[in-house]
């Protein structure tokens, strides 16, 4: 099956500053793709280029295997950064404009407003909406054409915890409809909860791409603590299957090499006469993975 989006050696320069440096990326159909990276790493620039609001300096990209033109964008639902609507128009009136732009019938407007739970407020002007409602309207507009692909750039930016939960639930619900979703976010927890694949950008370069399960598989983190801290520390250094040891608050967090488990470490420590007062296995999370990927490229 054709890639939904292929990005080939994409370049973007702002004067001397290189915002994107030969970026290549492939997004397969049906994936929920998380685009990660610190602020200023080129996430929005990348999305802006593939959505044709930013001109590329070099390289190429293809939607559904074809060179992009504007009619492709009619089949994509996208929000970039903040939700942008006419403030004096209501949700329905705003969506009517979008339906006209996308050359689709406006009959789905009520339906998408119900999906994002804005139907009751559909006739109120956009400017009276809370940030969460604005963000939800943006998602409704992205859904309007019933697109195969949704591009959501920081969809939970600036929302309160309740708003974040609402939007996250919405994304999972949309993913359940079988759509391909590209999600740019710096909230890794979020990406881990919903994404199947992810890529990490750093200073306009791709530093990692792969599936979330692979990235998190096989690597176990173990928290340990003993009364004799110095001896524990020395023994940890002696254990041959350790990747790294970090002090996290009161405990040591030990990252084990592939295939090694907490019981291997525990057995080794017992043999060395150390009795633990605390032993906990932690699943690796994307946040740690992300930070170590970034650290490796520093």
């Amino acid at each position, binding site marked *: 099956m054709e890639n939904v989006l292929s990005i080939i050696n994409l370049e973007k320069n702002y004067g001397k500053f290189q915002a994107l440096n030969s970026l290549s990326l492939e997004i397969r159909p049906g994936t929920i793709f998380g685009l990660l990276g610190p602020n200023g790493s080129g996430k929005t620039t990348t999305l*802006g280029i593939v*959505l*044709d*609001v*930013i*001109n590329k300096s070099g390289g190429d990209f293809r939607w559904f295997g074809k060179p992009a*033109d*504007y*009619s492709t*964008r*009619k089949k*994509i639902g*996208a*929000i*970039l950064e*903040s939700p*942008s*609507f*006419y*403030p*004096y*128009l209501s949700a329905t*009136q705003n969506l*009517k*404009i*979008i339906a*006209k*732009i*996308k*050359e689709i019938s406006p009959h789905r407007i009520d339906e998408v407003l119900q999906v994002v739970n804005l139907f009751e407020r559909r006739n109120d002007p956009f400017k009276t909406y809370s940030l969460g409602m604005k963000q939800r309207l943006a998602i409704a*507009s992205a859904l309007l054409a019933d697109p195969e692909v949704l591009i959501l750039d920081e969809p939970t930016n600036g929302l309160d915890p309740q708003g974040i939960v609402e939007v996250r639930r919405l994304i999972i619900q949309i993913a359940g409809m079988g759509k391909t979703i590209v999600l740019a976010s710096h909230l890794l927890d979020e990406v881990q909860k919903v994404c199947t694949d992810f890529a990490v950008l750093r200073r306009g370069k791709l530093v990692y791409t792969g599936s979330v399960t692979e990235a998190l598989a096989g690597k176990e983190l173990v928290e340990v603590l003993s009364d004799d801290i110095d001896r524990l520390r020395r023994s940890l250094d002696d254990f041959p299957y350790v990747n790294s040891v970090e002090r996290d608050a009161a405990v040591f967090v030990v990252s084990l090499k592939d295939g090694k488990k907490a019981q291997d470490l525990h057995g080794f420590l017992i043999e060395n006469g150390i009795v633990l007062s605390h032993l906990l296995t932690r699943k690796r999370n994307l946040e740690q993975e992300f930070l170590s990927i970034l650290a490796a490229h520093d």
Partner: protein
Amino acid sequence: MIRLLEIEWLKLRHYRIFWILLTLYFLVLGIVCGSGMLFLQYLESRGASFQNISPMLIPIYDFPDIWQNLTYLASFFRIILAFLVIISVTNESSYRTLRQNIIDGLNRKEFLLSKLSLVFVLSLMNTIFLLMLGMVLGLIFSSVVDARFIFSEIVFLGAHFLELFTFLLLAMLCGLLLKKAGLAIVLLVLYTMFIEPLITISLPSEYASLYDLLPVKSLNNLIDIPFPRYIFREMQNFIAWKSALIVGAYAFIYTGLSYLYLTKKDL
């Protein structure tokens, strides 16, 4: 094209400020153009006379002179329509809806065409308004109602359309480039009222022939001031081809620059 006009219509239909300004514009234009007789009455009450002829007898609403008189007067109010165009264009920047329109699947050329359609419709509305106003005022006050004369200088309405259309294109370009409504309006007013007149004053007189090439001067050249005819002075009571060509060229330049800006710029 109809679709683009519909998009523009959906954007403006519920935009109250736009309609208030537009209504005010037509109201003021109608009142000013229609109160010529009152003005002449006022002149008479002040004891003014033109070579012993009562001002009331000045045939300002006679066909076909009425067309030049009305279109000349109307050009003073074109700046209000320019505000409307500027607001419509700068809103798209400040609401970031220009960018969102493109993301949603409008291409940049279509966006430009949708704004061009607004400029076209405003110019056309204005021309039709003047046509109707002229017919009504003329049929009431004109001593000549022969069809031959009624429409013999109707070309002034065409010239007025060209003038307004080009000026509104300039307003659109200002709005696109400057992005802020206030800034664009102030600069446009400053330019038309002060900067260009200053340029004409400060240029050495041997360059006088170049004045006619200036953006606003060339617009004003299109329809000459008609009133000297009532004191039997020389005035230009026709549309000079050269002026029309210069204005037409500006219309192309403004459209071209807007297109270049929209296609080259990161939004």
